[in-house]
């Protein structure tokens, strides 16, 4: 019974948790957190199990209500979607362990119950988007996840409602564009199923309707993904959201849009269409390259750590877009690997920012100094690991996804993008070593002479926050060393057909 329904199990578990949390919490509010944690653990186990079973048996298609695809809705569990659900659920599980304490600090008690329910519904939306094989179902789950995300952002500090409102306006317009694109496509092809449309499109030939439909869908998902000129909502939303929200949404939130674009461009419309008939892939590549440079430069000038990480996210999303737009095997492997790697790196760094906020009450870069190193040795070590990975120092994960992207640009002979990748690594180094210098290398100023006399007490965060941070920091190295295993075992099988 469970085995038959395994493909749909992960989103359903999250949905069940999201429904049950408001009911359970009528009795005991503190249960909400443990229900959320248990659901995430269960979904992680299910999705890892799914990944292995897909690698063994090949793609599994799951029909809701027993109706075959053009009539009903189907879930498609192929290596790509199985891999991404496993990544998302795994990272979120680790982040949620960390979230327990910081939510207690930042969110009022009576608000925690709907907050955890929203987290669950957000994850349900993410899993649904990744697994679905139906365009309209994707829209519904896109709206679930973004709506939950607006709420998660708005629970933050004083300015959070304004940033959430701007995010809501942009996100809804994005969703509307996507829906309009689906409408054009539906009235042209008469189907909503991805696999079905893939068969129909070559028969109908090129038409302005198809081109506009594709552009509208990419535009809509591009807003959700924060592709370069459409990124306006991201920095404010990340900065003012509660630490728990930003450490959940930064690793996985925007990746969903990237995955949608990857799925639509290369699996539905096909490589030939998007590179030769209507070269939208090149447009995405150029925009991503601009986003990489823009995000890195803006990150250098930020004083607040979370804001800096937000701009760095824009530049890292650029890498994913670049890999998708290159539309060759190395580019796609690089992009998908970067979804995993960036998830780990950003989760680690945002957890570090959360730890700083927990203990110092702020995360202003200008106020960091070497007392931090003595106060919170483990957290700063995790930060150093994350920074090394972001810059792309070899044994860490950051190096390997960039390596595949570089191979991809070489294969396409697009040297300008190679320059962009190398330049942005340099810029990454600038803004991360700025903090590392403050924490590790700066000698003490005169004003701190008094403190030298009395040794600085160590005040590290509690174990439930420290362990997830360290686990992620160690994972940065482990997944870096295991990268050939992932690429050979999973990603080679996840390439779109015809590569």
């Amino acid at each position, binding site marked *: 019974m469970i085995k038959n329904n395994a493909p749909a199990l992960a989103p359903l578990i999250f949905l069940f948790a999201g429904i049950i949390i408001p009911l359970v919490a009528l009795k005991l509010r503190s249960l909400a957190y443990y229900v959320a944690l248990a659901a995430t653990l269960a979904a992680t186990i299910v999705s890892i199990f799914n990944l292995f079973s897909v690698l063994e048996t090949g793609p599994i298609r799951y029909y809701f209500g027993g109706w075959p695809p053009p009539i009903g809705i189907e879930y498609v569990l192929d290596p790509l979607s199985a891999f991404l659900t496993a990544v998302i659920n795994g990272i979120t599980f680790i982040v949620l362990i960390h979230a327990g304490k910081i939510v207690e600090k930042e969110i009022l008690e009576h608000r925690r119950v709907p907050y955890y329910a929203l987290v669950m519904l957000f994850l349900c939306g993410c899993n649904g988007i990744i697994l679905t094989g139906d365009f*309209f179902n994707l*829209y*519904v789950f896109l*709206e679930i996840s973004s*709506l939950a995300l*607006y*709420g998660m952002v*708005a629970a933050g*500090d*004083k*300015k959070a*409602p*304004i*940033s*959430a*409102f701007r995010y*809501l*306006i942009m996100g*809804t*317009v994005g*969703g*509307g564009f996507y*829906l*309009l694109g689906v*409408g054009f496509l*539906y*009235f042209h092809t008469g189907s*909503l199923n991805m696999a079905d449309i893939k068969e129909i499109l070559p028969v109908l030939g090129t038409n302005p309707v198809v081109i506009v439909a594709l552009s509208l869908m990419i535009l809509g998902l591009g807003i959700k993904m924060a592709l370069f000129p459409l990124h306006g909502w991201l920095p*404010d939303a990340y900065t003012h959201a509660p630490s728990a929200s930003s450490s959940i949404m930064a690793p996985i939130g925007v990746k969903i849009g990237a995955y949608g674009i990857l799925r639509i461009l290369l699996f539905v419309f096909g490589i030939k269409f998007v590179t030769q008939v209507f070269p939208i892939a090149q447009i995405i590549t150029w925009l991503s390259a601009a986003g990489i440079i823009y995000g890195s430069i803006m990150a250098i000038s930020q004083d607040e750590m979370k804001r800096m990480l937000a701009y760095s996210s824009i530049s890292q999303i650029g890498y994913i877009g670049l890999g998708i737009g290159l539309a060759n095997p190395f580019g796609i492997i690089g992009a998908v690997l970067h979804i995993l790697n960036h998830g780990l790196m950003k989760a680690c760094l945002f957890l570090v920012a959360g730890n700083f906020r927990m203990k110092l009450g702020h995360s202003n870069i200008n106020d960091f100094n070497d007392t931090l190193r003595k106060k919170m040795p483990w957290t700063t070590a995790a930060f150093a690991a994350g920074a090394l990975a972001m810059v792309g120092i070899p044994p860490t994960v950051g190096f390997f996804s960039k390596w595949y992207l570089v191979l991809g640009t070489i294969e396409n002979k697009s040297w300008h993008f190679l320059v962009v990748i190398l330049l942005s690594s340099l810029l990454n180094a600038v803004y991360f070593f700025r903090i590392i210098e403050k924490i590790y290398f700066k000698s003490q100023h005169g004003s701190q002479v008094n403190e030298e006399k009395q040794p600085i007490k160590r005040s590290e965060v509690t174990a439930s926050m420290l362990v997830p941070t360290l686990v992620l920091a160690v994972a940065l190295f482990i997944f870096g060393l295991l990268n050939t295993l992932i690429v050979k075992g999973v990603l080679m099988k996840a390439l779109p057909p015809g590569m």
Partner: protein
Amino acid sequence: MIDVFVGHYSYWFILVLLVIGLYGIIFKKNLVKKVIGLSIFQVAIILFYVAGASKWTATVPVLEHGVQPEVTVQYINPLPHTLMLTAIVVGVAISGVAFALIIRIYRRYRTLDEDTLLKYMNDDKE
């Protein structure tokens, strides 16, 4: 030419409505007006689907006397209507959330003017 016009003019009006909604979102400075623009935008998309579902010869998709038809021209395409029922609910949910956010913003800043709010966002260093 006249054929294209007669076949498509309703789409054109709907697309103009869509752009009016976008105009409201981009140009209006009051947050409530932005939400109104957003609603117009969503309604335009709903109308687009409903317009596409029509057939000249057909009636509403409810079977008469429970007799399954031989030909499909008798009833309009029910699928877009179903999809739009879902989209309407999504629109309602989004309006509800938008107004909740607006109330939160108004309680704190006592204004709904976007320029003033942006000034608060950039100035005040918490």
